[in-house]
Every structure is written in C-alpha cells, then in structure tokens.
C-alpha cells in the first residue's frame, strides 16, 4: 500500500489542479481516488522500490536546477527559432543526427528526450532499440558533434541528477 502514497499525493494535487481550487478537501478526494485508479493498471507502473521521503526531499535541489536550466534553454530556443522564422531568407542546414545518451531508466530517457525537444533547434525523432541513442532532428546540423556534445554536457547532466 505504501507505494501508492506518492501517486496518491500526486493525484491529490492533480485533483486540486484540475478542479481549479487548491484546498484540503480536493486533495483528500484525489488522494482517496488514487489507489482505485492505479490498481487496475498496476502492471504499467514500476512499483519495485518503495517510496522514501528522504530520497524525495534529496531530489528537490537537482530538480530545481534542472527546471531552471530547462526554462533558460527553452527561452533561448524560442528566441533562436523566432529569428529563423522571422528572417526573410531561409538559410538553415537541418538534419537528423544520432546522439548517445547515458540515462538508463524509462523516466530519465523520456525526460531527456522531451528536454531535447523543448530546447533550441533540436527535436527527438526516435530512440534506438537499445536505448543508447536518440535520433535528433536539428535545425543546424552543420556540426553534429557539437550538438551531441552540448546535449551531453548541458542538459543530460541535470536530468541524470534529478531523475536517476
């Protein structure tokens, strides 16, 4: 039962959010519903390790760091793209490149993939079967290695910290 608690907490919050009013009533309601929603779909979720509060709290600073980096990157991405869109002449060199990744968990892989998509000039197209490469479409593929490097050194580090 214990392993439902994080989900229950999250769902309690979700309930508040979808309901539009954040208060205890709503939270408790969502909290109560959570197990009933989760149980039928148990096999879809990874319930191996039990939830520990300590570990959860430890994850907060890296998460914050990740969020900050993500937001700045997103803003950068937007400005870059805005320029491209607004430039009267299109001179882009797009292409799809393979980027090696180090994440192991499904969540981590997903987060890095999504992060890549949300950040400048890159878009995750697919993941290799062994989950070691992401195929990334980039608007500026003139130097593929540079792109791969920037991902590994920039974003992936924070993702690994926060989600693995």
């Amino acid at each position, binding site marked *: 039962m214990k392993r439902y608690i994080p*989900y229950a907490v999250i*769902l309690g919050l*979700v*309930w508040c959010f*979808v*309901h539009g009013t954040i208060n205890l*009533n709503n939270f*408790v309601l*969502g909290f109560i*519903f*959570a197990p009933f*929603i*989760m149980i*039928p*779909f*148990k*096999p*879809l*979720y990874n319930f191996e390790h039990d939830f520990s509060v300590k570990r959860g709290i430890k994850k907060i600073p890296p998460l914050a760091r990740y969020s900050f980096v993500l937001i700045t990157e997103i803003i950068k991405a937007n400005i870059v793209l805005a320029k491209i869109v607004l430039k009267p002449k299109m001179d882009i060199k797009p292409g799809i490149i393979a980027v090696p990744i180090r994440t192991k968990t*499904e*969540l981590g*892989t*997903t987060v890095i*993939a*999504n992060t890549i998509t949300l950040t400048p000039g890159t878009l*995750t197209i*697919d*993941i290799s079967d062994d*989950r070691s490469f992401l195929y990334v479409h980039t608007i500026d593929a003139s130097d593929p290695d540079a792109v791969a490097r920037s991902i590994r050194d920039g974003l992936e580090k924070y993702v690994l910290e926060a989600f693995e």
Partner: protein
Amino acid sequence: MTTIITKTVTRICLPLVILFSISLLLAGHNNPGGGFIGGVMFASVIALTYIVFGIDHIRSFFNPDWADLFASGLLLASLTAFAALPFGHNFFRSAVEFLHLPFFGEVELVSAALFDLGVYFVVIGSLLSVLKNVGDDK
C-alpha cells in the same frame, strides 16, 4: 510499436486523465462536464493506452467486459429513473438532499447524479466496446 518515450508519458497521463474524467463527472451538475463528457474522457484515455501499448498488452492485465459495463450503465440509469415509482412519484422524478458531512461540509446529494453515473458507464462501455471489437478484428 510506439517508443518508450510515448509510453512513459502515456503512463503519466493515464491516472491524471482518469482523475480528470471523474472530476468532470462529479462536477457536471454545477460546472461544465457530466457523465457524457467524463465518460468520453475516460474512454479516450483507455483508447490512448490501447493505441500506445497495444490492445493485446493492455488486455493481458486489464480486460473488463465493456459490454457488461454499458449494460450496467443502462441498467443503473433506468433503475434510477424507476426508483421514483415506489415513492409515489413519476418516473425520473429527481430528489435533492443537502447533507452536512463533518469534513466536506455541505454536500449536495442529487439522485440525478446516479443517473449521470449510469450515463458515464454507458459512454465508456459502448465506446470502448466499439473500439475493442473493431481493434480485435484482424
């Protein structure tokens, strides 16, 4: 097959949307929503899991008989309507009660909510039954 990325996000969405669907069902009487909208929401997220994970995989652990569900929904809806008869009222005569619960404060109990629940089941059951029947058809 869809990728791990899609699957992960679908996993995240699934409970959220189900919760949202329940929220829409319950809120329906006072806010936009209701049995139909909630039901379609539920059905679409199950459809999403069918699509993303493959219908066979989902069925290996989650395989309700949707026909039974929509039948029960229809049964519930019509029984709710019939329930007024023994009280000397006409079919579908609704009842509204205001209850004071210790924690939630004033709660409105509406017989129509039970009917809406029936609608909810029917929508979920029938839509998913259609999808499943066609999806199974190879």
